[in-house]
């Protein structure tokens, strides 16, 4: 659990974080989203004290981070950044093992954990562990960066626009990996991005930050359906918000159960956006839905357009 309690931060005369309070639950995937300069990265960096705060408190599991030894605090928190920051003189395996080494894990445990992480992040092609960062693609480098952040099984991971510099395909693949790992391990993740789609795709809850303050905090659907004000409405996409919503909601929750339709079926776990794309591709306004290779119902275009879905 991470709590921000009336946090203030200014750089010179410029207020970066203005009396901000927020509570992030254990095992939650929380995404801070906002334009550049809104203070979201600064807020993230107050958790591992890369940025000292001027007033207020940041607590982890009820304990003020300012009272902890700063190096021990940081070793207990995973940290990944957009520029990755792999150590160029160290191999992939050595990079991943950074924090376990700092924590003096026994060597065989470090080796086992490294192998496990390479598989988890789909870096398990032969010889990968002995390669140097400059021989990797951007996507592979960030996979190593994420593996390094997760290496010592931290209960909290901070990620500062980790996928911002990647191409869309690589980004989606890494997002899927991260989401799956987070679901399996129950890690608390605080994730910063300026990309609304990424925020809505990953976050259990999303906090929209503007000018050093949180404008609205809620689930992606709450932000879409009930924007707190016009600024939120603009940021979540105005008229295009409905398109975003289609990407969040699943076919299974919005189909007509038991009904029949012709055509190639869509999966119940797919998003409504995928279903719409399938309808456009097949030239049909209703498609069958399947779950576990069984027809379970139909999805209908009219339901997507009317607000019923």
């Amino acid at each position: 659990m991470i709590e921000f309690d009336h946090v203030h931060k200014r750089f010179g005369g410029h207020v970066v974080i203005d009396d901000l309070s927020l509570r992030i639950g254990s095992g939650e995937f929380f995404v801070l989203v906002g334009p550049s300069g809104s203070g979201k990265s600064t807020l993230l960096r107050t958790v591992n004290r890369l940025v000292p705060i001027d007033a207020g408190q940041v607590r982890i599991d009820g304990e003020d981070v300012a009272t902890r030894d700063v190096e021990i605090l940081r070793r207990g928190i995973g940290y990944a950044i957009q520029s990755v920051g792999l150590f160029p003189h160290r191999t992939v395996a050595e990079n991943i093992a950074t924090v376990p080494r700092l924590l003096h894990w026994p060597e065989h445990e470090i080796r086992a954990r490294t192998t496990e992480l390479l598989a988890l992040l789909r870096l398990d092609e032969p010889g990968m562990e002995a390669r140097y960062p400059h021989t990797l693609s951007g996507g592979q480098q960030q996979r190593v960066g994420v593996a390094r952040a997760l290496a010592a099984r931290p209960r909290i991971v901070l990620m500062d626009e980790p996928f911002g510099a990647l191409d869309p395909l690589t980004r989606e693949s890494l997002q899927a990996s991260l989401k799956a790992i987070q679901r399996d391990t129950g890690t608390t993740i605080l994730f910063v991005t300026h990309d609304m789609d990424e925020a809505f795709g990953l976050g259990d809850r999303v906090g929209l930050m503007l000018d050093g303050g949180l404008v609205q905090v809620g689930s992606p659907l709450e932000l879409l359906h009930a924007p707190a004000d016009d600024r939120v409405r603009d940021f979540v996409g105005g008229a295009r918000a409905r398109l975003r919503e289609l990407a969040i909601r699943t076919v299974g929750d919005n189909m007509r159960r038991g009904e029949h339709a012709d055509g190639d079926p869509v999966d119940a776990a797919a998003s409504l956006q995928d279903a719409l794309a399938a309808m456009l591709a097949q030239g049909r306004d209703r498609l069958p839905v399947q779950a576990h290779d069984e027809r379970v119902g139909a999805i209908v275009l009219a339901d997507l357009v009317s607000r019923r879905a």
Partner: protein
Amino acid sequence: MKARPALLIDATALPVWVLSVIGLAAACLPAFLRIAPNRLLSGEALNPHAWLLAGGWLAVVVCSFVAVPAARRALVALAWAGVVGFPLLAGLDARDVLTHASPFTRVQLGAGFWLGWLAAALLLLDRLRGMRRAWQAGTWIAALAAIVVASMTGAFDGLSLVREWQAQRAPFAAALSEHLRLAAATLVLALACGAPLGWWVWRTGRANGALVGALAFLQTVPSLALFALLIAPFAWLAHAWPALGALGFGGTGAAPAIFALLLYALLPVVRYTVAGLDAVPDDAREAARGLGMSRAQLLWSVQLPLGWPVLLAGVRIVAVQTIGLAAVAALIGAGGLGRFVFLGIGQGAMDMVLLGTLAIIVLALAVDLLFQGLLALTEHRA
């Protein structure tokens, strides 16, 4: 144009021509050797091989005009032959002259020899450029080996430089070891003071201008003046604290010499330390801090390995500079190879001057090579 012309002027041939002109001029100088009645008098000029040498240099010019690979190889071979042949020729001549001469007679190397030999060495250096490192190293090692083998068979024993060395073996060995100790002590102290100072300058960023300015100003003080200026304060220190005096601390000697050399060495060490720290990528440093490395761990396991090649390049410069400057330290009684130079000047014995000077040059080159080797090793690993 139908066919390539047989004679093609190579754009890279300019250094060859310049060196050939120098070589030809040297071949025409009257003094390849000088025959002197004793070690203090200057002798009469002798140039028995003017035609051979001139012919060799003309062959170099001809080769430079022919654009075929064989000609290029011939150029390398000619240059190599010059590097090895000049001293051999001089050695053989000296032996001939001495067979019917008084025992005090000295055969000194003349301007024609030095100029021609230098031109041959520069030619070899120029022609080896762009070749594989193993070839370059192999060629030089072969030349060195040939000269060493020849010297072991006594081929150079007739030359006055060798005679001077044979007469002064013990003081020469002592001076060499003093010189090395002065340089080593300076280097160690410069790293011990300069590296932390550089780290501090890099971290605060504030003192940079003032400190580097002060150190740069020191560089402009002539070494002789700095040595002289230090005599009074060091003498006073030794007087005020007799314990220091008992340790050999005084207005003259090694202590003020090392201090002065240290002052000259600090600027490059500080500069290269800062440059080395700047060479570490910001994101790697940010990640290291975020993952919980302490300052010492960051320095030891990230900044040092990544900044090391730059720092080493700086140490190389400092080492070569210190070996050169340490020659002047002989003037304030610190010993070293400079003593031969100044004693030789005092006595008018040019062989002694040359002995000291050549030893300093060879030492500087050897240290430079050593650091280049170290640098190549670290770069290879990275």
